[in-house]
């Protein structure tokens, strides 16, 4: 028998449902948090890989005319303040792109591909797109300017909102777990009020009594949340295998995988510690009143 356990909390009816609820909440909570990590990583990949903000499309005329026009456009862009990088997308890459969209047997002879020039802005100077467009139209009225930033911003906002929402949900789940702990502790205090009274009559400090509850809650919380986290980890592995089988393994970078493992290992400790703190606060508050 544990000498420190002066209260019979182990067989507490009031607290019997707590481990199950905590395990469930940690299961959902860790998965939710890992999802925010995933979104953050995706956002990062997104921001580092898709740097092209503008594309200029030059329709194909005769080969010579096109390359001369291309040359002029590139020169003009290179002179434009605020432009960091100008890259002409190789024709081969364009063809590959179209084949992948339309299938291998698409006839590109019938569908003349435009030349595409990708433009990366340095972000320091505010480039006036309309002004740029009118200058380009002066070079040739057939030039098309496509501003990717609008939809890129949409996607980035969407990802950030997703991260934010998932974090909020994680926090809500954690608060629910802590609220459950607090309610269970309050019931437990009522059940054991006579024992608590005896303890305080023989000189037990509030802190001593709170410690009794804390130790019990920590043990219970650690076991329950370890189970929840372990099942969440199995779910995560399942999703990973599924993604790999469907050819989406690039979505799980090794750094994301490593961070997720850390979340699964640390969340039981974090949860148990938070529950312990909640228990202490609940007991101290109840004893003070």
């Amino acid at each position, binding site marked *: *028998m544990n000498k420190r356990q002066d209260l*019979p909390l182990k067989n507490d009816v009031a607290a019997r449902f707590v481990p199950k609820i905590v395990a469930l909440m940690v299961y959902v909570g860790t998965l939710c948090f890992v999802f925010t990590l995933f979104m953050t990583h995706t956002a990062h990949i997104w921001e580092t890989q898709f740097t092209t903000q503008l594309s200029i499309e030059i329709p194909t005329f005769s080969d010579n005319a096109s390359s001369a026009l291309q040359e002029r456009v590139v020169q003009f862009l290179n002179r434009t303040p605020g432009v960091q990088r100008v890259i002409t997308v190789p024709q081969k890459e364009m063809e590959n792109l179209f084949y992948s969209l339309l299938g291998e047997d698409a006839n590109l002879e019938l569908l003349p591909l435009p030349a595409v020039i990708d433009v990366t802005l340095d972000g320091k100077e505010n480039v006036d797109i309309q002004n740029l467009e009118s200058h380009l139209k002066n070079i040739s009225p057939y030039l098309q300017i496509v501003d990717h930033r609008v939809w890129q911003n949409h996607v980035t906002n969407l990802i950030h909102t997703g991260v934010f929402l998932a974090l909020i949900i994680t926090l809500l789940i954690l608060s629910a777990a802590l609220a459950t702990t607090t309610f269970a502790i309050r019931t437990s205090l009522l059940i054991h009020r006579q024992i608590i009274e005896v*303890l305080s009559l023989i*000189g037990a400090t*509030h802190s001593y009594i709170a410690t009794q509850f804390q130790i019990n809650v920590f043990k219970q919380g650690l076991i329950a949340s370890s189970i929840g986290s372990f099942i969440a980890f199995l779910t995560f592995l399942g999703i990973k295998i599924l993604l790999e089988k469907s050819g989406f393994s690039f979505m799980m970078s090794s750094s994301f995988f490593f961070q997720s493992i850390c979340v699964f290992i640390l969340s039981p400790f974090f949860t148990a510690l938070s529950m312990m703190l909640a228990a202490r606060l609940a007991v101290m508050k109840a004893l003070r009143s």
Partner: protein
Amino acid sequence: MTVSDMIARLVGVGHKYETGPEIFKGITVDIEKGSFHFLTGPSGSGKSSLLRMLYLGLKPTWGNIQLFGEDTLKVTSSLLPLLRQKIGVVFQEFKLLDHLRVIDNVSLPLRVRGIESKRGQKHVQELLDWIGLGDCLKAYPPSLSGGQKQRVSIARAIITRPQLLLADEPTGNVDDDMAMKLLYLFEELNKMGTAVIIATHNQRILEKFPYSQLTIKEGSLLKLPMRKVAYE
């Protein structure tokens, strides 16, 4: 007499339970260090209530109690346990913890004070042996008789050698021989410096031990000084 010689000082203390009669009408008394008192009075006169006030389990409705030099009306929740740690209480209704073994019940005050040790544990065993409970160390209170529970409660109250011992009918459930033995135990404790207040009805004890008697009568406290007796 200086304040530092005082364990407790009651000045004009009165009490009335919300639902009940006025039980004290302005009691004034000093409990000195190392003194020994019996507390007597008819059933329902307020012996337990007075002891309860002394271990800060009951607030006086008016008047003032000073305990170990502290004004009990101003005691904070952090000071309260420290004052109680100087007091050992034998409750009339024992108040043992049923889920703890006898030995753990008795060592509870040591644990609460953070002074539990191997030596302390041995001390607990010796004490339980001495009061005839050497065979019940591992028993749980519900399996004990009334007299056995009472002795466990006494052991728990004195294990820390408190500065003040409050015993509410500590011999109510034991035979006369055991009652005498327990009284000798309290005397020993008193010789080591503990102030002792024992609420009792037991005439034999009152006759045999010549200590001062505090008698509650119609809400007042009468003090009979220590008798001079020739020991046989």
